[in-house]
């Protein structure tokens, strides 16, 4: 009898944009096959919205759509619980709820959730979490340890290169706009890329605030906000503090209704005063036309300010 090879599904929403590469290398190193849900499109977003509580954020709706797209295509869907990395280094509570939330939404719908838990404040680090998750899949400790190390190394190298490339953009000629947004918003092919794509088409260089040296950004974030407690928001806030004088404008880009963004972006706009700033909130209804009009007028303001209009 042929042995069944395990397949793990990776939903391409939320933390995929932070850990996707790490996950893929890790499982591949262990000889476990992974399958992706595919790029976000209208169908995925609508399916996710139908599965969600109305008030949930657009990013969660998209995520659940991705999980639905994996149903029947894998043995497990990977949904970690990521809670904290230390003091004032928390995740939005949604990332704490995510595995159980997914489990309850898809109860009886043929989706099995595979999870691991990172909660440094409760002494649960990432490496131990990976070890115990893969141990549950019947892999030896040594094997898993090696795979994790390898995945981590590759992930760090990849990230370093990405940061280096992004840093180069600050030195380029032309109008530069810093996009302060969560990775899963700005990088999402259906929602965020529409924004960066439009800017590029208009001859503006969009630079991602979330692609930044994370340790450095965490330190800088305290220049703007002392008690900001969300890891990913702090990276973005820190990046804004590091780069506000190197860009011509800042776009605070958010998916409706993002809890941390609703507060953090308000604080940024009250404390970072001398750069043109646009607060742009994307929802499932906002067609591209409305967004483009606002982007267009924002770019006009920058050009006007610099005497180029």
């Amino acid at each position, binding site marked *: 009898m042929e042995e069944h090879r395990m397949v793990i599904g990776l939903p391409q929403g939320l933390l995929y944009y932070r850990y996707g590469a790490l996950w893929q290398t890790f499982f591949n190193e262990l000889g476990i096959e992974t399958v992706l849900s595919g790029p976000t499109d209208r169908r995925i977003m609508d399916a996710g919205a139908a599965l969600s509580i109305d*008030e949930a954020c657009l990013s969660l709706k998209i995520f659940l759509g991705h999980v639905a797209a994996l149903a029947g295509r894998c043995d497990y869907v990977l949904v970690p619980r990521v809670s904290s990395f230390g003091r004032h280094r928390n995740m939005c*509570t949604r990332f704490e*709820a995510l595995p*159980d939330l997914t489990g*309850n939404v898809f109860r009886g719908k043929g989706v099995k959730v595979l*999870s691991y838990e990172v909660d440094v404040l409760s002494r649960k680090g990432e490496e131990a979490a990976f070890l115990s998750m893969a141990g549950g899949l019947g892999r030896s400790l040594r094997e898993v340890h090696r795979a994790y190390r390898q995945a981590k190394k590759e992930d760090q190298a990849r990230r370093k290169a990405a940061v280096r490339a992004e840093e180069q953009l600050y030195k380029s000629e032309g109008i530069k706009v810093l996009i302060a947004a969560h990775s899963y918003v700005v990088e999402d092919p259906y929602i965020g890329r529409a924004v960066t794509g439009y800017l590029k088409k208009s001859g503006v260089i969009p630079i991602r605030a979330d692609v930044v040296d994370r340790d450095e950004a965490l330190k800088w974030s305290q220049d703007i906000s*002392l008690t900001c407690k969300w890891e990913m928001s702090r990276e973005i806030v820190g990046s804004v503090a590091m780069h506000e004088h190197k860009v011509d404008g800042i776009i605070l880009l958010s998916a409706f209704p993002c809890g941390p963004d609703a507060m*953090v972006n308000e604080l940024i706009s*009250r404390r970072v005063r001398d750069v043109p700033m646009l607060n742009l909130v994307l929802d499932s209804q906002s067609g591209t036309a409305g967004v483009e009009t606002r982007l267009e007028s924002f770019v006009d303001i920058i050009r006007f300010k610099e005497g180029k209009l």
Partner: protein
Amino acid sequence: MKDAMEQKKISFPRYAEYNCAFKYIVEQALGCKYVMPPALTKRTMELGAKYSPEFVCTPFKTTLGNMIESLEAGADTLLMTHGLCRLGYYGELQEQILKDLGYKFDFINLSEYDMSKKKEYIRIVRRINPRVNPAKFLAEFMEGVRMVEYLDELTGEYYKNRGFDASGGDYDQAYREFLTAMYTARCRADVEEGYRAARRAMQAVPIEKPLRPLRVGLVGEFYTVMDAFSNLELERKLSGMGVEVHRWMNVTHQFLQYSGGQKNMHVKIEDLCRYEMGPTSTANIWYARECAERGFDGIIHIKSAACTPEIDVMPVLQNISADYKIPVLYLTYDAQTSDVGLMTRLEAFYDMIDMRKKVL
């Protein structure tokens, strides 16, 4: 006289009826003046909503509005707590908004302290009053905590029984007098005697319940589920319809007994959730199942608009509802939620559970 001039005038926004305990601790334990914020009104909400970011959760707006009212009432020092959800970021943003408006005050934001360290509590106390007497502080602080326990105990009793008061109002009267005693208590004897007198008075009221009264359990977000203004007096409305209203969630249960972390409660809900889904999620899921297993007639889930942890609990509650065939009413409160709209939904819910009771 000089002391009175130097005394800080501290305020912390209205939160259910707990402000009597805040007042007691600030005045008796910390030796400062407590500025009781004006009762929450429509004006509070309008002020809060006007100056808050649009998509922040409603308690942010309520507390911001109430802080403005405290400053108008003469407070010179505002206190804001830390917290595990967005609450932990209220302080810094509210301080910024108020300072941008031009108010002058000292702001004590507990999020700036590492509240996992005991040393930090001493720093906070010293900042509020450097000449505090440690022994007196500890004794009076504990009395303030006891006041919270008494308040939660009698409030729980009150809403279970007030719908069945056969005297025509004595029960309400006894509870009101209890609150007055707590809000005016100035020493340990005042607290203890006020509590015991209220207990006696409440027990003396004739309560006439049908053999199987309608029982409804309340679960939900920590502020809105408890604060009568914020939930538009839901408990009063429900009990007024002749319903036994049960609510586990209060400060005593959550902080003094269950103390936040995932304790033994999670055992009974392991099949529904493996992890702690949010600051109060384990307790809410546990209690919802408890209500279902105890044969309650319905559950009401209460939250403010945009409360992330409670939105995420809803799919679990939907599963409990399906498993136990127990109706769940989901209520979301924002700055615009109206009394009339709520009453319509409550009446419909009442009719439905009442009919089910008669049929089943």
